[in-house]
């Protein structure tokens, strides 16, 4: 498939020799493509013939700035959304709130991504809970991966490197919130509460003024809690409902 972009690159001789040969053959074989290319060349020729008007410096600077901004917002870049990030944003500084908001919208449809064909519900409750609740197995598997990733990130969290610590912690908060929402929707209030409880700890870890020893203590407590939840969830399918 030869796209307009490819034709443009062909016109300006920006393709490799192999690619150029492919386009040349396609143009020879496909009259419609050849017509499209001629039209493109005509348009480019017309632009070339337009006399260049002098542009004031301040206007040029604004253009450059606008183009830079457009490039920064190109597809594939993470864009801040405001519609989802409500939880815990109260009381946060604007910068932290904005950073927390980044990318949340991307993964909200967590459940939609789960393969319904894989789901076989597993019982999940607290230790000694008589009322066993069915939680989708696909959610449990996803949560296990999330907890394992979080545990690894928390264990390796650079306590003394403030910028990295804050950035990593904010990422963890985003992911954690997705799973907290998913837990609510997956009929798992117990898990939702635990995940919700991680967030204040993570927010404290994200604070720039936290003392290293306090950060270390929080990190270790969080790692422990993650380990406990991993142990519980991993045991869920093989153990009796009473134990988890």
């Amino acid at each position: 498939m030869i796209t307009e972009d490819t034709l443009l690159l062909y016109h300006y001789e920006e393709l490799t020799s192999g690619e150029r040969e492919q386009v040349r053959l396609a143009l020879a074989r496909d009259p419609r493509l050849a017509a499209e290319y001629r039209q493109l060349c005509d348009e480019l020729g017309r632009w070339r013939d337009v006399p260049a008007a002098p542009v004031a410096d301040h206007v040029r600077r604004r253009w450059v700035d606008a183009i830079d901004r457009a490039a920064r917002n190109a597809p594939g870049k993470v864009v801040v959304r405001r519609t989802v990030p409500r939880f815990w944003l109260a009381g946060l500084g604007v910068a932290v709130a904005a950073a927390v908001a980044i990318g949340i919208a991307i993964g909200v449809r967590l459940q939609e991504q789960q393969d319904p064909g894989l789901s076989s519900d597993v019982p999940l409750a607290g230790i000694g809970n008589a009322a066993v609740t069915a939680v989708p197995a696909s959610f449990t598997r996803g949560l296990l991966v999330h907890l394992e990733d979080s545990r690894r990130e928390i264990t390796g969290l650079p306590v003394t490197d403030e910028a990295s610590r804050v950035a990593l912690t904010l990422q963890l908060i985003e992911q954690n919130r997705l799973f907290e929402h998913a837990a609510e929707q997956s009929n798992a209030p117990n898990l939702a509460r635990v995940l919700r409880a991680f967030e204040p700890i993570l927010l404290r870890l994200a604070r720039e003024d936290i003392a290293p020893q306090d950060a270390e203590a929080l990190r270790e407590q969080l790692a422990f809690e993650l380990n406990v939840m991993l142990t519980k969830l991993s045991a869920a399918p093989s153990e009796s409902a009473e134990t988890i």
Partner: protein
Amino acid sequence: MHFLRTVSVIAIAAFAVTGAAAQTADKSADDTEQLRITALEALASAPPEKALPIADKVLRGDYSKALKKRALFILSQVETPEAQQMLLDTAKTGSEELRSEAIRMIGIGGDPAALAGLKEIHASGDADVREAVLEAYLIADDAESVYQIAIDAKNAKDEDEFEEAVNILGAMEARDELRRLRDQLGSSEELINAYSVAGDFESLRELAMDNTKPEQQVHALRGLGVVGGERANTTLLEIYRATDSPDVKEAALEGMLISEYDEGVLLLFRESKDAGEKQRLLRTLVNMDSDAVMEIIESTFDGAQ
């Protein structure tokens, strides 16, 4: 079940290590602490009758605060009245640091009786304890209790706690409770901020349309921007067009900027016949990194606008 017995035995053995181990070299002490932490982790798979005595032993014994905090987390995962009572006891009578942690664990456990017990602790607690109780209610998603704290705080003229409780309700997206607060106490900046965080479009729209209280209107317009979405954008556009107040216009524009509603700003730019207003709108579009900026620049130099 064999696995569970093994876990229990390991845990019991780990906590049977005497104080003598702690008196040896630091390395040995660290190893002992690590072993105990790992043993507590393993308790997550043990039945309550095995887990509770060990957790109790840790809480009552001469163990580190870090270890006691971990035991509290284990208790939060044991859904029996005994475990919840142990958490409540620690929340009432433990050391300052453990009290806050126990309160958090009651939130995680979500047991209604234990959560009800937090009311008394809140009433008699210091600022840290009161904050921990609010956080526990948030973790447990108990909006009614937070609402009660907000009402009590207002009656006691404790504005800081009122604001904190309202913020928490916003974070919980507890729209009903926030509306009840407005019905009872009237509107305030704190409530408008909470409506934004809670995404309560209806309340914000009502406040934004009310031009008898300009300051409140301005806050609500910004709040609509935070909520975002089609309904909020349409309202911002309507209000901008309808008002003659420069402050309200500016707030509506700010709302559109926050909401990244560049289509609306572009629409206003095209509608406007006022050069000063056009400049303001164009600057807003530039601040929004809008693609429309290039279009406007080109058409400006074409003389088409």
